[in-house]
């Protein structure tokens, strides 16, 4: 029965309605035999519906007999992607192409129409994998994943509670627990105007008023006497939803019903670029020939939608591009592809496709510029000048890593920061920071008294340091110094007058020398 121990047997919650066929799986030493109906074969593992329920068996350990057995020599991995066009249109095709080239496979893209394609990956002998792509919306991607019509959902937002519940009901497990989600790149939500529109900076309150329909003339924003023509993507897109939840709902308003909508973001942006009085909602990766608007805060900070600000999540309307995987095991090619999307080779593809990759970059102390000036002007009883001097002494001579950790509440990291832990830990394991010192610096927002804020920021920094130590299992910590420090509300990135501003300020930065 030693062979038996090698078999991975996992009762799965849900049996996919695949054509029923009879198989008998016998262990190589003949010690046991399982009869059942083959549900699927992924090139490595059999999924069989048996009297014990659905079982997954390692193909290495068993021989298959019966009419339902797959032809092992001609197995083609089928991987179905479905979801947001922000990932499906440009990024995913580029990633598939690069993945194939890296694995010495050629790719032929079979185009059915603008939203359906299949990428056929072959080596010198035969077809090895078929990646099918449906370019639609985040919501449809989740629906396809839950209905087992997709193996990987492409998403611009985390699943809604209703989607999480639906997945649980359908037996596809918990969408928000475990490593079901991975962030592959970053994008940002931006408002765009035509190049010749003089208004180029707006507060979130003003943006919200424009799209809610309460500000209707550019003159109210310091511009010309002309009607504002707002344009948005369709209401069922994640972009529309995210704008609603992050910008409109906190102000108790909703999208004006008279707004012009577009099925394609490209069409929306082209329409805005051609009309001086339009303003449109789009992403930083798709601003076409229009100009992005800077986000102004009441305290004087302006957030510029830029690659650097998105990389460190300092821009308030960041949109992580995510892939959600099912609770079941994916074929080897799918797993290899997912692994590839987190590699430095993929980072390059992501950058070239116009998105923000997650590679770790640095900026030096002098880049603090405005932020430091702002902090000094605000110095007072909560943040005395001596505290700022301590900050300057501690950070001068170090560089800030783009990797920044943010918190949903208390010391609970957000989804992207959990990904950042893995990234930074992996970099530590590869020796990228050997001989260096990493300082985890905690900050808080300015809500409440400064004492507790200081303690909270200290515990956040310590939490991140601890997570890094635990995750980077193979890193040589005799070569790397890890320390934590905290400065409470001393150095805000954004104004604390809004929820998003406070969220941006609750962070742990990493400074290296």
């Amino acid at each position, binding site marked *: 029965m030693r062979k038996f121990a090698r078999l991975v047997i996992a009762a799965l919650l849900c049996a996919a309605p695949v054509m029923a066929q009879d198989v008998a799986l016998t262990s190589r030493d003949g010690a046991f035999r399982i009869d059942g109906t083959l549900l699927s074969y992924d090139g490595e593992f059999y999924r069989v519906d048996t009297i014990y329920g659905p079982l997954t068996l390692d193909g290495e350990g068993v021989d298959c007999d019966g009419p339902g057995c797959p032809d092992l020599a001609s197995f083609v991995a089928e991987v179905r992607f479905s979801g947001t066009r922000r990932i499906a249109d440009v990024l995913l095709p580029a990633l598939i192409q690069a993945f194939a080239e890296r694995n010495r496979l050629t790719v032929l*893209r079979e185009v059915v129409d603008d*939203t359906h394609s299949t990428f056929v990956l072959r080596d010198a002998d035969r077809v090895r994998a078929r990646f099918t792509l449906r370019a639609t919306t985040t919501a449809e991607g989740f629906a396809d994943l839950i209905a087992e019509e997709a193996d990987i959902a492409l998403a611009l937002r985390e699943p809604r509670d209703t989607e999480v519940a639906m997945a649980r009901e359908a037996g596809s497990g918990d969408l928000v627990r475990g490593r079901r989600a991975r962030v592959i790149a970053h994008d940002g939500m931006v408002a765009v105007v035509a190049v010749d529109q003089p208004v180029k900076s707006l507060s979130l309150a003003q943006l919200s008023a424009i799209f809610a329909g309460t500000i209707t003339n550019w003159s109210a924003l310091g511009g010309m006497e002309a009607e504002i023509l707002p344009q948005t993507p369709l209401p069922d897109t994640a972009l529309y939803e995210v704008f609603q939840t992050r910008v409109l709902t906190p102000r108790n308003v909703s999208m004006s019903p008279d707004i012009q909508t577009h099925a394609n973001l490209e069409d929306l942006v082209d329409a805005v670029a051609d009309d001086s009085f339009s303003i449109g909602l789009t992403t930083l990766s798709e601003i076409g020939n229009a100009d992005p608007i800077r986000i102004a805060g009441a305290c004087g900070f302006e957030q510029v939608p830029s690659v650097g600000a998105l990389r460190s999540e300092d821009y308030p309307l960041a949109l992580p591009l995510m892939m959600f995987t099912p609770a079941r095991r994916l074929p080897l090619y799918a797993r290899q592809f997912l692994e590839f999307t987190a590699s430095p080779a993929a980072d390059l593809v992501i950058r070239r496709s116009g998105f923000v990759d997650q590679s770790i970059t640095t900026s030096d102390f002098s880049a603090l510029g405005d932020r430091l000036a702002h902090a000094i002007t605000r110095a007072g009883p909560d943040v005395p000048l001596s505290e700022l001097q301590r900050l300057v002494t501690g950070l001068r001579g170090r560089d800030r890593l783009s990797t920044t950790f943010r918190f949903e509440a208390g010391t609970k990291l957000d989804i992207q920061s959990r990904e950042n832990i893995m990234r930074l830990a992996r970099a530590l394991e590869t020796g990228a920071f050997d001989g260096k010192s990493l300082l985890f610096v905690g900050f808080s927002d300015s809500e409440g008294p400064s004492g507790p804020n200081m303690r909270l920021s200290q515990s956040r920094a310590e939490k991140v340091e601890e997570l890094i130590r635990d995750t980077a299992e193979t890193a040589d910590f005799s070569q790397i110094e890890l320390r934590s420090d905290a400065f409470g509300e001393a150095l805000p990135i954004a104004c604390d007058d809004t929820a998003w501003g406070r969220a941006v300020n609750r962070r742990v930065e990493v400074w290296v020398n």
Partner: protein
Amino acid sequence: MSKKRCTLLGAGLCAFATMAHADTAALALPAPLPATDIALPQLPATTLPSKQIHHRAVPDWATTTLAASTATQADISAFGLPCEVTLRGDPMPDALFAVTLNAPCRPNTPVAMHYAGLTFDVMTSITGQAGFALPAMTMSGALGAVFKDGLRLSTPIDAPDLSEYARVAVAWSQALDMRLTANAPRHIPVRSYALGQADGRSVQILSHHQSPEARRAVIRLGVAAPITAQNCGQERHATVRHLQPDMPPISYELRLAPTSCDQVGGILELKNILQDLKLAAK
């Protein structure tokens, strides 16, 4: 110059001629034929009736074509030119190359041209020549010409100034009327080039010269074709190559599913399959 004669002289020459007229912002390929004549060698008005010339005087065994007989006898073409086959590419402004294929003893012969992973067919003229303007698609590469009988020629195409150009090329594997379309802002001039001939494999190239003071811009790319009784139900195969300043070139292969013949009269339009050209500010 009539359209017919243009075909006779090799589509390549026509492509050369149309190039100058293709400087438009919004465009549709293939580019129209030139409105005016261009300077070409003066040729007999009709195809040489070589068989008829010999018919009366010579016996049956000698009724081969004039071109073939002179060629075998003395390595001299029907026009008295040596049979030596040459291919050359001479640099021109705008990262273009004037390609001249000279095969005097291979008149009216199809030749497959291979360049940067793109393939298109040209036809030699009655005098065995083919000429066209080739937009460079790689800094350093070679243009190959392959005749049906296996004869191969090659010439280097080195374009050091290519780094200032954004170009996209689509090579269609069969003669179908698919068009590469571009939508660019007014200040972004896009030139178009058509290579190959109507009934063979063809290549369409769009080119934009990015000036040093250029600002960020996006050129939208798409493909479109009218669905006709001739092309419905047929698969289309294409090779796409993108070149952009400061970026490594990208190539990919596409196979477009056949359109239904119920849709004849409609238009097949794909807007999201080709990556848009995104030009960074200089």
